[in-house]
């Protein structure tokens, strides 16, 4: 492999990781955008999502990576699993909002944020107790088909995961830009009281935001499993923290920023691992975070500090 091949290979890997971080970062940024809450439960909604997907695949008769599909059957199974996983995670997110956070709406200070940490621990321990502490061999119907260009390997699963991530992000963007409910979300992010005064039902917008953010986290959890071929009750923390960093890096509250931040973090992880050392990855990522917060506190795409009256 030439140096250029290695670079290109790591860019491919980085974009794959980045797509997953982007999906996960979107949930942080959307919830922060409308109610200014850092939702730490999101870490483990992602983890639960990967389990929901694995169990769904197992229920469909897939175990491990031996049973592979091609063509339309593969597309059909993938769509079905993504739909079930996203619905399940979305409902989990709505339940968290409804039972743990809504009673605290209007409570000033850090109580809601601390509550999300508590909910995160509950999800973590429920999965630990229910599924066990060992890593799970992920059910994966995707074949190992790959194309080799010189020294660079491009796997079919990467192309599929990029496509799925892209479709989800384009759909989210369309929803937020063009639909009435999406516009209500943006209006609420810009001025909650004015949004209330034009007749927007704030509770409903919050529920929909939690649903969408959590559904995307579930999709990211499924992508994690399909990419790494394993899952575990532990995966929420590392990936969640990196995705959170991605959201801050892009400018928290900013949807395109979260997408960009995710890809940047993915590339740092893969390139840093290649050219520096894997054990330095987190140090590089979080040093970047500190640098961004010092030099450009509103993030890469963020606006100058929002003025609130």
């Amino acid at each position, binding site marked *: 492999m030439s140096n250029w091949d290695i670079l290109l290979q790591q860019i491919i890997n980085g974009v794959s990781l980045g797509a997953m971080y982007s999906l996960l970062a979107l949930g942080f940024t959307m919830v922060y955008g409308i109610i200014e809450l850092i939702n730490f439960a999101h870490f483990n909604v992602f983890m639960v999502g990967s389990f929901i997907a694995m169990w769904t695949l197992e229920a469909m008769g897939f175990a491990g990576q031996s049973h592979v599909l091609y063509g339309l059957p593969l597309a059909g199974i993938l769509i079905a699993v993504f739909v079930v996983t996203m619905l399940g995670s979305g409902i989990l997110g709505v339940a968290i909002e409804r039972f743990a956070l809504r009673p605290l709406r209007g409570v000033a200070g850090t109580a809601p944020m601390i509550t999300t940490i508590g909910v995160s621990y509950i999800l973590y321990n429920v999965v630990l107790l229910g599924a066990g502490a060992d890593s799970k061999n992920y059910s994966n119907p995707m074949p190992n088909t790959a194309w080799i260009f010189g020294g660079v390997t491009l796997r079919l699963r990467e192309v599929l995961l990029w496509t799925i991530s892209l479709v989800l992000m384009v759909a989210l963007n369309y929803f937020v830009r063009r639909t*009435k409910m999406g*516009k*209500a979300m*943006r*209006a609420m992010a*810009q*001025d909650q*009281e*004015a*949004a*209330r*005064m*034009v*007749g*927007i*039902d704030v509770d409903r917008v919050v529920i929909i935001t939690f649903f969408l953010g959590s559904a995307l986290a579930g999709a990211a959890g499924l992508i994690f499993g399909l990419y790494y071929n394993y899952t575990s009750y532990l995966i929420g923390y590392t990936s969640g923290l990196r995705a959170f960093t991605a959201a801050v890096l892009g400018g928290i509250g900013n949807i395109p920023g979260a997408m960009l931040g995710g890809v940047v973090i993915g590339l740092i992880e893969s390139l840093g691992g290649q050219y520096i050392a894997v054990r330095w990855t987190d140090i590089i990522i979080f040093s970047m975070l500190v640098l961004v917060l010092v030099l450009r506190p509103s993030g890469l795409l963020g606006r100058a500090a929002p003025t609130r*009256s």
Partner: protein
Amino acid sequence: MPILDEQPTPSQRPPPLLEFKDVNTYYGELHVLKDVDYRVGQGEIVCLLGGNACGKSTTMKTILGIVKPKSGTISYAGERINDLPTAQRVKRGIAPVPEARRLFPRMTVLENLEMGAFTRDDLVEIEADKERVFGLFPRIKERLKQQAGTLSGGEQQMVAIGRALMARPKLLCMDEPSMGLSPAFVEQVFDIIQVINRQGTSIFMVEQNANMALSIANYGYVLQTGQVVLHGSAQSLRDNEMVQQAYLGEMKAEPAPVGANGE
């Protein structure tokens, strides 16, 4: 509380669209509105005068349901609306032009107008109302694609009024419509308010510019530290010595009413 004159007497005013009866509102421990009575008759322009921190903005928030009263009755179109959420009030025809405009700064002018019609589903009628807004404010039509936050203060006020009209309101609640506008623009805004009123919308207006407000209003209330201390026809308020001193800047130079500052 004193009624300044019997012309028109309450019974001669048009039937009420909005009515406050003995309304008390609190912010935590702070008693803001104290046994307040207001009435906006159908087709009227009613203005509320008062200094800073006297409860004017709380009045607006109470009408819209953003603040709920602790006691008393708020009725609108014959219905008690104390417990009705804001969205339902907007749907029934109460639309605000909030203090400082409160447009959605990073949405386009067109999107801001469309947000005003959020509670409506009648697409054809919404289009018709858009044209009506463009008729009132031709300048808006030239700026549809521009982000609302980049407009001048006067243009923002036009969009804010336009956004409220998109709800097709029966009652328009305007909080300081002249604030921060140049004198020429203030004049224009008050002309527009009269046009909107003649088209059949009742108007409840909180305003520091008492001169302008009383020149177009039918009826007025004076609020001091949360209490209605005077009310009467706009003409009678303009003739009232206390109002002249405190709000119209005549006779004495000091503009603030007793107890209305610095609280």
